[in-house]
């Protein structure tokens, strides 16, 4: 577009009219365009919180008054996938029943991994409650958020179901309610909160949450209570203590003396779940004994009108 510098002067009277009119117009325009700026403070406020959703309650504190830092230590020397019990893994069953987890969600899932040299080991895998959680980082609305206790929770009232968190999680620990969740009718009576994910809501994401309401009142999470071999320890890094319901250990010492490791350490997610290597040898399992019973959900028949799906 060729521009032509035109030096044609405008008549003075017209220019005065134009100027006044122009000024009014400009003012009007300015006022109109500044209106969005009024939105700025709440936006800035939200931005400064970095989108942190808040837990519904005050953070859990320990006897010394400091905030709890929940952790889990899973002693694989004691986990045999409940082969010796003849049941599906009881940690998973207790979690499903305690939370009315819709089928086919296994918030703590017992994977069977092959060992070099043959044989397998069982790895119960709850949400790793990462300190650098990829799911928290990518959530557009802050529906997935980190708590002061170091856990990661999901607010299903805010989740928009975009599932970028599921793409981001490197541990396969997030589950989506694709349809109406198959849950029993009594689940619908519960008061939903992000610490007590009952009932599940269609079109949103959910996962293991370290049962925040239980340790707050001095009980251990469902999976710890249910493990017949005491393989799962729940602990507080702040007090440096962990228990599997029977034994108590100093968490840091237990970890270092037993060569604890974390899953996918190289991804930099800094999980709060640690593993002590083993294959169930302390409860008599030989590494060549493969296979465990498949997980069961007790209420598909009672979940009215909804059907389950494959993972």
């Amino acid at each position, binding site marked *: 577009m*060729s521009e*032509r510098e*035109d030096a*044609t002067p*405008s008549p003075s009277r*017209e220019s005065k009219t*134009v100027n006044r009119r*122009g000024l009014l*117009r400009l003012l009007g*325009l300015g006022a109109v*365009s500044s209106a969005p700026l009024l939105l700025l403070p709440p936006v*800035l406020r939200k*931005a*400064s919180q*970095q989108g*942190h959703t808040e837990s519904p309650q005050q953070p859990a504190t320990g*006897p*010394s008054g*400091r*905030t709890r*830092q929940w952790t889990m230590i899973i002693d694989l020397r004691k986990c045999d996938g409940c082969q010796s019990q003849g049941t599906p893994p009881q940690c998973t069953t207790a979690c499903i029943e305690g939370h009315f987890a819709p089928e086919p969600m296994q918030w703590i899932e017992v994977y069977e991994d092959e060992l070099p040299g043959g044989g397998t080991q069982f790895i119960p895998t709850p949400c790793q409650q990462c*300190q*650098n*959680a990829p799911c*928290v*980082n990518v959530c557009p609305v802050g529906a997935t*958020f*980190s*708590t*002061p*206790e*170091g856990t*990661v929770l999901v607010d299903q009232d805010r989740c928009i179901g975009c599932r970028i968190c599921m793409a981001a999680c490197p541990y396969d620990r997030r589950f989506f309610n694709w349809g109406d969740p198959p849950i029993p009718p009594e689940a619908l009576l519960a008061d939903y909160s992000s610490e007590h994910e009952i009932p599940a809501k269609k079109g949103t994401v959910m996962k293991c949450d370290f049962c925040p309401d239980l*340790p707050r009142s*001095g*009980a*251990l999470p469902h999976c710890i209570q249910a493990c017949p071999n005491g393989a799962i320890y*729940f*602990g*507080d*890094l*702040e*007090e*440096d*203590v*962990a*228990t599997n*319901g*029977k*034994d*108590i*250990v*100093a968490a840091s*010492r237990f970890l270092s*003396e037993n060569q604890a490791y974390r899953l996918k350490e190289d991804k930099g997610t*800094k999980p709060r779940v640690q593993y002590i290597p083993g294959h169930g040898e302390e409860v008599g399992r030989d590494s060549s004994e493969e296979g465990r019973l498949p997980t069961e959900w007790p209420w598909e028949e009672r979940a009215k009108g909804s059907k389950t799906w494959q993972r």
Partner: protein
Amino acid sequence: MRIALASLLCSVLAALVVSFGHGNSTASADLSLPAAFATITVDGDDSDWDSIEGLSVTLKQFEIPSGSEWEYDPLDPVEAQVKAATDGDRFYLLFKVFDDYDWDPDDSNLSGSPNVMFLIDQLAGPHMGSGDEDFEESLGMVDIWHWELECGPGVMSGGGDAGTGNDPDCNLDDEFATDPEERDDDGKGDAPNTNGENSLAGSWDHTGRAGGTGSEGAWVFEYSRPLQTGDPEDAQFGLGSSTFLALAYFDADESRTGWSDAGHLTSADAGWLEVLLPSGQPTATPVPTGSQDPTATPEPTASPESTPTPAAPGPDDSEIEAEVTVSDEPRVGEPSEIRVVLRHAEDGSPVPDVKVRVLQDKSFMDVEGVVELIGARTDEDGVAVMTFIPRRPGEQELLIEYLLPEAIEPASTTASLMVADGGQIFQSEAGVNIPGLGVWAIFAVITTVWALLLLIAARVIAVARAGGVPPPGAPGYEGRLTGGGLLEGTDELTEPGPLDEADRLDEPGTLGDD
């Protein structure tokens, strides 16, 4: 046949134990244990031995010299523990073997079998290794308490007719040996001994007996015998003196038919074990050596000195004192140093290479217990330095345990400390933190872009404003139609188009329809 073989094997054992006297003019021992002054109930239950210090030994198969006809299946070593006591009248012995439970009431070869041997003649030497060709040579006499478990657990074994060491009922025989090949019941050897007798009292049990054959646990073999028996083929015990013993155990798991003569496991590798008998009843209440009195101090730096209680004056001194210091003003969340020094009480020489552990009471979620915080080994100066991070403010105690070389159970001492309060140690580090990139950078970019878009909008408004009155000299209306005036120097192309002419901006002209 089995008895013959058993005897032969016992002889071998005896032989190896009595040999190697060359160069050993006096029996000496590297390991010793003090006998406590106590009365023990011989019933197979070792709980009455709990406060008495013992000695741990490893029982291993000895190596048969090459060229021998004996062959056996290799067995893993087993751990054993021996404790001794006396009440001035009788000598009590506890022989505990950590092996699985095997007992067959009908076949003692399928049951474990213990053997205890006492030195009688000084020159008799314990087996020190394999390969001695002269094991036929007799160097002295040893007293053997040989027990094949023909009676059940808790049943009093031993005793027998006068003149013989044989126990016809339960097979706890009092035997002797003078050379490697022979072993006889007291009174039955070649040399006449009318004073042969069996005044042994023994009772056995196994901690894993409830679980049946093969259960893990420990054999508990309890013996007692009068200090003096008057039988020259017995070792005699005296208050204030030492006696030397060796141990052996036959493991029924050695083969499908049970233990074999060659396969037994002995303590001979460790030499004679010296038992130090007390000289009399001690004036103070006997306490197990090694435990120290805690001296609780309210100061932040605690250094409890402890006085060891000596067990018996013996040639070797095993009293250890521990000195514990904790760094000044421990605070929650800050590393605190704890320093443990182990020294011999006698001469202050350091006790190196001892594992020291620091423990504390903790409770969590209705579970209470003692947990290990940190551990280390003492270095050559007997010093172990450890760092731990206190987690709880206030007065608290640390339990420091250390396992001395010959001890079964660890000794311990306590340290008190007052920990100051501190702040939160762990902060949840949630979220992505890219240094330098903040929401402000995003805002800056968005603001710039939208400002430019608003600028464009302003220009459009300016275009609107510049419409209406065409400046003089401009091509005028026609220019709008044909695009003339858009180009340089093309005014001459201006021509009105052939279509309808609508005058102003907002005059729609005649209504048409498409």
